[in-house]
């Protein structure tokens, strides 16, 4: 349920309605998908630059470190979003990350999107949505 429809809805222990997803939560989770997709692209650039098990090379690998930073930010955003929302609404939005990566990867790398990949991604996004619907908040 989105903002503004909270009358006569059961309250949870934090005083908010139990079946309620704030707009702030939705905004945070959308942001998390952007940082999650950026992380994938940066990690890929970083992985390309790795040459052997060279610790200095890994610490100074800017895209790799940037990718990990985006992943860390992604985790923080997801945790904050889940405090104010239902999994059944937030999970399908999280699955958007798969769509962003499918759009971005062919733009930056020698990568193509195909019918079978679109079919697979559609099934995965639907599957993650069902899992969200079946999970307790």
């Amino acid at each position: 349920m989105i903002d503004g429809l909270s009358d006569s809805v059961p309250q949870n222990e934090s005083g908010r309605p139990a079946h309620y997803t704030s707009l702030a939560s939705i905004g945070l989770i959308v942001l998390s998908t952007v940082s999650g997709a950026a992380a994938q692209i940066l990690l890929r650039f970083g992985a390309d630059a790795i040459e052997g098990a060279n610790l200095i090379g890994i610490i100074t690998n800017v895209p790799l470190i940037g990718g990990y930073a985006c992943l860390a930010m992604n985790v923080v955003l997801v945790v904050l979003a889940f405090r104010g929302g239902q999994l059944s609404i937030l999970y399908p939005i999280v699955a958007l990350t798969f769509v962003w990566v499918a759009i971005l990867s062919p733009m930056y790398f020698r990568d193509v999107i195909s019918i079978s990949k679109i079919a697979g991604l559609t099934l995965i996004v639907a599957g993650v949505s069902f899992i969200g619907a079946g999970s307790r908040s």
Partner: protein
Amino acid sequence: MTTPASSILLVLAASLLGSIAMALLKVGADRQRRTQPPLRWLSAVAAGISLFLASSVLYVLGIKDGSLTILYPMVSTSYVWGLLWSRWFFDEPFNRNKIVGLTLVVAGVFFIGLSQG
């Protein structure tokens, strides 16, 4: 670009390790909530963080070769593992939605795995 089977296996292994890491963090959080001694819950959290690090190393090695449009969707298998751990270790029952979702994710990963490029 062709995607080597070894890259797919590395990403699948990273996803499995990542889901175990997540479960260990939940064990740690539950123990902390039940005010168990710090060593009890911190050890679970430390094990979880270590597995996360191991998982991320496998993942980066996995995406070094091959297509991100094939390799990244393989991460969705961690949702499947997560459901299994929550069923087996945290007594969260399966329901119809979870079973449908699990089936769709596995079918989707199968389609992606069969894709060329």
